[in-house]
């Protein structure tokens, strides 16, 4: 347990250091000293460092939260090994520059996720883990078929060389490859047509695992890989960005409609994950630099406030022993830290100024209007209003309700409070990232990497010649 805390702290420090000290450059590292066309490279540019910072913040706070939560549920040391494997798999997916290496690390992360969802040994957890495992396996096979077709068309597996060779092959093959990859990764990212595993898996898992899954796993495995493949390798053809727009909009509307009628607190939060992923896909589909800025910023914000919401749900469950909203009430006096941070997080996700959710949603809506797509902006605004309505429901029934709670079974310890307070402070602090002085340091290099689409080739191959 101590080793894992040291490891995540070291990871957080290293990723912050690399993000700050390396603004525009790209670092490549070839494994086993094989030179570029034959070996596997690891690439780190601005987008990679940004997402690494996000993953390490969430995993650090999740580990602090879970030290006490697991002692209450009487689990043991195997949880920490699986947790470290999950972080390993996600870091591997983010940093690699080779298609098959991505597949192997993605499978490592998914194995640990399946095992961690089923960790509590209750009946619903096994059913949810089985559904997640079957759907995850089918989508992994589709991704492997996409990698096979890519290899057959371009006879190389490195991402930069595929991007270089791509204009010289038959254009119809690109539709096949894009369709197979999109079918696989949209299931991993839980957008609309393939979202059915998400409510069961995220509501039955233990609370720190729910926050890791919903905060970073669906984003690092699903959205980040789609950004890499469709923007840096394929040069963003029109038909795929239109599909992103449609899928994103459907996810926003249907996710929020399904979430309002829920009475189980974690299931409501899981349905909101679907809706917020719809916002990110909408921002990616607009394909102008402002839209990409909104999408990347919303990715970072959603990780922070959704994890905070899941921690609140976990501490409420630990204190009261139930997750049903109708049975809670009047928690403002008995759990002060939980209810105040929950208020901050609910205001963030609904898009109230001055929290960070407001700024990222505003950027996405302005980008949609500037690109000449007004109907999508209307749908985004409707989704935001309905999100506000459903979180008002959570606040009223859960924290200010009528039934009074006499006593609390287990106290919320100082470690869980620390994790929640860190994330609440970050909620307010990241809204400062849009101030123009700070934006050039943190967010602009990221957008530049994505928006100059095939500059990626020059960065990787040029770096190899000087290596």
């Amino acid at each position, binding site marked *: 347990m101590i080793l894992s805390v040291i490891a995540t702290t070291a990871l957080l420090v290293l990723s912050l250091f690399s993000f700050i000290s390396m603004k525009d450059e790209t670092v490549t590292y070839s494994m086993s000293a094989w030179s570029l066309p034959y070996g596997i490279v690891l690439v780190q540019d601005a987008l990679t460092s940004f997402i690494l910072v996000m993953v390490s913040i969430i995993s650090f706070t999740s580990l602090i939260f879970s030290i006490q939560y697991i002692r209450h549920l009487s689990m043991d040391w195997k949880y920490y090994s699986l947790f470290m494997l999950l972080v390993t798999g996600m870091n591997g997916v983010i940093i690699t520059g080779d298609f098959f290496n991505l597949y192997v690390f993605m499978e490592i992360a998914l194995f640990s996720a399946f095992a961690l969802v*089923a960790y509590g040994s209750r009946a619903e957890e096994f*059913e949810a883990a089985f559904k997640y*495992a079957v759907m995850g*396996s089918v989508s992994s096979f589709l991704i492997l078929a996409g990698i096979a077709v890519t*290899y057959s068309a371009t006879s190389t597996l490195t991402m930069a060389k595929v991007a270089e060779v791509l204009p010289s092959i038959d254009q119809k093959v690109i539709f096949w490859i894009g369709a197979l990859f999109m079918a696989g990764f949209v299931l991993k990212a839980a957008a609309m047509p393939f979202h059915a595993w998400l409510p*069961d898996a995220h509501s039955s898992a233990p609370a720190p695992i729910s926050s890791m899954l919903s905060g970073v796993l669906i984003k690092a495995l699903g959205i980040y890989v789609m950004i890499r493949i469709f923007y840096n390798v394929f040069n963003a053809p029109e038909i795929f960005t239109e599909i992103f727009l449609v899928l994103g909009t459907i996810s926003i509307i249907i996710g929020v409609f399904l979430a309002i009628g829920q009475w189980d607190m974690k299931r409501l939060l899981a349905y909101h994950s679907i809706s917020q992923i719809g916002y990110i896909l909408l921002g990616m589909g607009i394909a102008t630099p402002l839209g990409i800025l909104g999408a990347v910023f919303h990715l970072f914000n959603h990780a922070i406030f959704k994890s905070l919401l899941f921690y609140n749900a976990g501490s409420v469950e630990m204190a009261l022993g139930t997750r049903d909203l109708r049975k809670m009430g009047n928690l403002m006096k008995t759990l002060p830290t939980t209810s105040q941070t929950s208020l901050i997080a609910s205001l963030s996700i609904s898009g109230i100024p001055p929290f960070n959710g407001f700024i990222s949603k505003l950027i996405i809506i302005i980008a949609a209007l500037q690109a000449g797509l007004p109907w999508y902006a209307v749908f985004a605004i409707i989704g935001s209003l309905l999100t506000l309505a459903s979180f008002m429901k959570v606040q009223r029934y859960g924290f200010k309700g009528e039934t009074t709670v006499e006593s609390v079974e287990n106290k919320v310890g100082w470690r869980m409070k620390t994790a929640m307070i860190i994330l609440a402070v970050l909620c307010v602090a990241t809204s400062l990232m849009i101030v123009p002085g700070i934006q050039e340091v943190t967010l602009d290099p990221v957008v530049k990497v994505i928006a100059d689409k095939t500059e990626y080739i020059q960065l990787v191959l040029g770096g190899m010649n000087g290596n």
Partner: protein
Amino acid sequence: MIVYLLCFVLLLVGLYGVITKRDLIKIILSIGILGYAVNFLLILFAYRKDSVYPILAKGKEVAQMVDPLPQALVLTSIVIELGTTAMLVALAIKLFEKYQTFDITQIRRLKG
């Protein structure tokens, strides 16, 4: 050309099994068939006309060989699917312990 069509038929058979069967063990076997189909597709893409196997023994001279890279990819992929199948079977055993049935229409406690 016929071989590619047969590979696609195998993929459809596996997908049909995952979608429509009601027994847990049959779903696990259909995922196995889906894995065979995708590995087969990978190996089919490695074939070159009139070539020999890509192993150089002591007395032979260098001739034209089939592509050995997808064969390495398939080895890794088979090991990963072995791990997935082991985990699915372990989950099936635990599900039988809790629900006393293998029928997936009866294992439906999470709704809505």
